[in-house]
């Protein structure tokens, strides 16, 4: 019986352990990118977390992404990783007595930050509230669509990421793909995010959004000035959020965030909380300021105020 002989031959003997090892190795190999996959797929597969990358590693990654995006969108896309400015902690003010609910900010943000148009991702949600009830979120309406705004008897409260000092979304991330930067901006490493969406559940402001599908971003409308932690194109299956336009505000001099720039009534204010001369400090010191869901102790750096 030749079969019997070969099985008894020590060279062919397969123990259960050996067998399991082999299966594991094959499965592991299958999980790796295809052998025909381009080098960039292999590189992104083995890319480190943003915070663990050395400078040369980061530069390589940025160059790879720039090449990738430039090819996809047919224009020269710049991906920067501008670090925080020392002595700066960003704060945002929103004047509830001025906002007219026109949603210019919503779409200004979409344009600047390369959000998906379809399926739609909006970082800003404008709530219409009753003056009678005050800030009563249970009676808020964000699908309002009259011919003209503001409507009588209503006021408007845009909600976006509050860049909390104590961010619950960061706390729940199982892989540390999201964190608070030194200047207070809460960012996501889209290459590290595993898409578990715990952060979406944890955020009390509804400020995080998930890429369920490939982003519908027309090449002509793509903003080529991007930041690694901000408005660079996002892959499918990752979470994204407002970053106070990190690609703009980290420069010296840095432009105001897009929503501030586009607001027709000047209800949106932005500045450095550590600079006593900044407009945000003037607001906090001189105006009636309130924080949304203050009782949750998230300590947002987003301040609603009444200028009148």
């Amino acid at each position: 019986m030749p079969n019997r002989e070969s099985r008894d031959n020590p060279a062919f003997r397969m123990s259960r352990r050996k067998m399991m090892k082999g299966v594991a190795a094959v499965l592991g190999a299958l999980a790796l990118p295809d052998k025909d996959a381009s080098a960039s797929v292999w590189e992104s597969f083995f890319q480190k977390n943003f915070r663990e990358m050395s400078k040369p590693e980061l530069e390589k990654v940025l160059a790879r992404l720039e090449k990738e995006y430039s090819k996809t969108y047919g224009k020269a896309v710049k991906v920067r990783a501008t670090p925080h400015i020392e002595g700066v902690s960003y704060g945002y003010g929103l004047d509830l007595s001025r906002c007219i609910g026109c949603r210019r900010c919503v779409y200004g943000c979409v344009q600047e930050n390369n959000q998906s148009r379809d399926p739609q991702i909006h970082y800003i949600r404008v709530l219409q509230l009753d003056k009678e009830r005050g800030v009563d979120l249970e009676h808020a309406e964000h699908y309002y669509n009259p011919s003209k705004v503001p409507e009588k008897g209503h006021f408007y409260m845009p909600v976006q990421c509050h860049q909390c000092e104590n961010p619950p979304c960061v706390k729940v991330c199982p892989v540390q793909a999201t964190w608070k930067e030194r200047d207070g901006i809460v960012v996501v490493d889209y290459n590290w995010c595993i898409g578990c969406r715990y952060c979406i559940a944890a955020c009390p402001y509804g400020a995080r959004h998930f890429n369920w599908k490939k982003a519908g971003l027309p090449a002509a409308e793509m903003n080529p000035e991007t930041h690694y932690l901000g408005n660079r194109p996002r892959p499918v299956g990752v979470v994204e959020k407002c970053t106070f336009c990190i690609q703009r505000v980290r420069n010296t001099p840095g432009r105001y965030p897009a929503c501030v720039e586009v607001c027709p009534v000047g209800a949106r204010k932005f500045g450095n909380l550590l600079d006593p001369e900044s407009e945000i400090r003037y607001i906090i010191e001189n105006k009636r300021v309130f924080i949304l869901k203050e009782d949750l102790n998230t300590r947002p750096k987003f301040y609603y105020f009444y200028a009148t």
Partner: protein
Amino acid sequence: MKRDRLRHGFVPGMAALVFCVVAGVASAAPLQDKGSAAKPHAADAPERQFAVPTPPFTPGIFPCSECHKEMKPNPTRRTLTEEHTNIVLNHAQGQRWCLDCHDISNRDKLRLVSGEKIGFGESFRLCGQCHGDKYRDWKVGVHGKRTGMWNGEKQYLLCVHCHNPHDPRYKPIPPMPPPTRPENVK
């Protein structure tokens, strides 16, 4: 170190701003008196202090003297029936009329209560006579829209870019489309 550089970069602008704030807050003292200090007061050179764009004139209407130089000024309070009939004053109309803000002798100027004549480019001083709280907030960039660099050069708008001086309430505008409802997401 970086911070120092940043601060130095916009010290001139900030200094001007700080000065304005101080002047605004200490408005118990008349503005003119403060001007006698060594440093020129904000009110003396407002265009330099606040980078404002040109006023939003109706095309072809300025300079006013173009038409008015031929006319004899009539200081009698009346309803205009021949010209400027499109202007409906809805701004404390019972208490004022044209010549309270427009200068009678120089039609290309506005007129403060003090009698001082100012250009249309610094009309915020005129508005600030009554709306001092808004003027103060505007100077620090809290009332009204300010664009530019959050840590550098900033551009202001004049009051009249958002508020029609003859009918100042901000006019309603059409909103942008609402977000897609979840049930309509394909």
